[in-house]
């Protein structure tokens, strides 16, 4: 497999993504809200209660819960791009000439995945840096020390966010083979958020607290799921299937 071919396809998809304002803004707005809006919410709701025992014990739980939103974003945002770059190409019938070029199915699939992964990942990582910066500003005042960086955020940003984004892209590829319009693909793809939301709820009700160990276990489970989904995506993304069986 030639990465250069995959990158040519990915850079084209990213070019299209930048010109498709609706998709562009949908990928930007969520990380922006989480990175700026949630720290502001903490700041506004904390009031004059800095240093109290409630804040000392409760604030880290709230911050960790908010950090989990980046995983939820990573599991939904790539579907917006992946659905467009695959179902959109199918709708515009631009896959056939692409398949006639000297690229392999895997190179095209990898290119599509990179093109759908990179913009949301970059947006989430930038959002994560802003989030940590703002939270540290507030926690320094409220707790007396900067809360980030810490192992929880490292696992979230470096393992869970990319793994969840990969899951989203792979699910989108599989869905794209079975639907014929972008909106349906996006709607079905966004259902991938359900298991992540469930983990979030379990964390909130303390059934499955979002500790480093638990987050690592989740990361491992997603990784295994990603591997299985990858095989399924590869078997779906075959040129003959695309031209003759895809709806």
């Amino acid at each position, binding site marked *: 497999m030639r990465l250069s071919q995959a990158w040519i396809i990915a850079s*084209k998809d990213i070019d299209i993504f930048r010109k498709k304002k609706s998709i562009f803004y949908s990928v930007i707005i969520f990380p922006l809200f989480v990175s700026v809006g949630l720290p502001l919410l903490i700041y506004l709701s904390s009031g004059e209660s800095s240093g109290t025992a409630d804040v000392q014990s409760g604030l880290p739980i709230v911050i960790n819960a908010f950090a989990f939103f980046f995983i939820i974003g990573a599991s939904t945002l790539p579907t917006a791009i992946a659905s467009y770059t695959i179902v959109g190409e199918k709708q*515009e019938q631009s896959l*056939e*000439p*692409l398949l006639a*070029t000297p690229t392999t199915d895997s190179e095209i699939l990898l290119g599509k995945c990179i093109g759908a992964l990179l913009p949301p990942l970059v947006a989430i990582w930038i959002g994560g840096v802003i989030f940590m910066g703002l939270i540290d500003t507030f926690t320094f005042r409220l707790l007396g020390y900067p809360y980030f960086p810490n192992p929880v955020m490292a696992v979230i940003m470096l393992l869970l966010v990319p793994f969840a984004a990969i899951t989203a892209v792979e699910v989108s590829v599989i869905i794209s083979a079975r639907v014929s319009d972008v909106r349906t693909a996006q709607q079905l793809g966004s259902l991938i958020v359900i298991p992540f939301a469930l983990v979030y709820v379990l964390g909130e009700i303390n059934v499955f607290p979002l500790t480093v160990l638990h987050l690592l276990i989740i990361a491992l489970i997603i990784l295994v799921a990603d591997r299985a989904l990858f095989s399924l995506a590869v078997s779906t993304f075959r040129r003959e299937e695309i*031209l003759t069986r895809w709806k």
Partner: protein
Amino acid sequence: MIDAINLTKKFGDVIAVDGLTFHVHEGDVFGFLGPNGAGKTTTVRMLCCLIAKTSGEARIAGYDTANDDDSLKIRKIIGFMPENVGLYGELSAYRNLDFYARLYDRSEQQRKESIERLLRLLGLWEKKDLPVGTFSKGMKQKVAIARALVHDPEILFLDEPTSNLDPEAAKTVRDFILELKKEKKTIFLNTHNLNEAQKLCDHIGILKTHLLRTGTPDDLKESLWGSKTVIQLEDVNDRIVAAVKQHTSGKVVVEGHRLVIDVINAEKENPGLVGAVFAAGGRIQFVEGLNPTLEDVYLKTVREEQ
């Protein structure tokens, strides 16, 4: 350059293409004619290594379409224009072409030169930076042709290149194909348009799941009925018909006031036929040659099959 031997494609129990055997010479324009659902697009897809054959053999420039390594080599030397243009509407004409040129490992200089040459030839250079989505159908078709040529392929597969185009845009595309023919490109052309096939093709295959006829346009027309001479008279009587029949071994048919006579060499036979009619007292209004068109050949062939 293009060889198909017993090439067959089945989708489940449905036979889409049945035992095609043909050869396209280097530098030839080969026209594939056939009604909708005849298997033209399926054949092109098999030849371009987009779908696998069920049986038989297909070779492009000696490479086997069934071999994975060969199929990459084939896709490097072919240009393909599908029936639907399939361009990226958000991207400019230049960016669309540059994307494809990069997939063929063209250097930046090669890409620039090739894209500029093609867009200038097709009259689109001034609009190179506009999004393709804003283009008319004809302009998009031209960009799609440029895309198929951007890497200077040896063989070009064009699937209905002038379908849905207005006459002027269709003529521009046809003229461009004629230019490519002068450059000795091997072209495989799927078309419904019989005039187009007549004007552009060196050889023609008529397909309806299997290959019904193949040959040069002239051979095909000749095979239908050769030439005919029509003599329009003021009145036709038995004496005139007998005189004509004495003068020719070809078939003579009376259609109202017209005699339709099969001839082998019209220039040689017509003076004698006219003389015979005149000697029998016939008063000739006019004489004309009647040659079968490709449309006659196509319709007869397809109807016979039905």
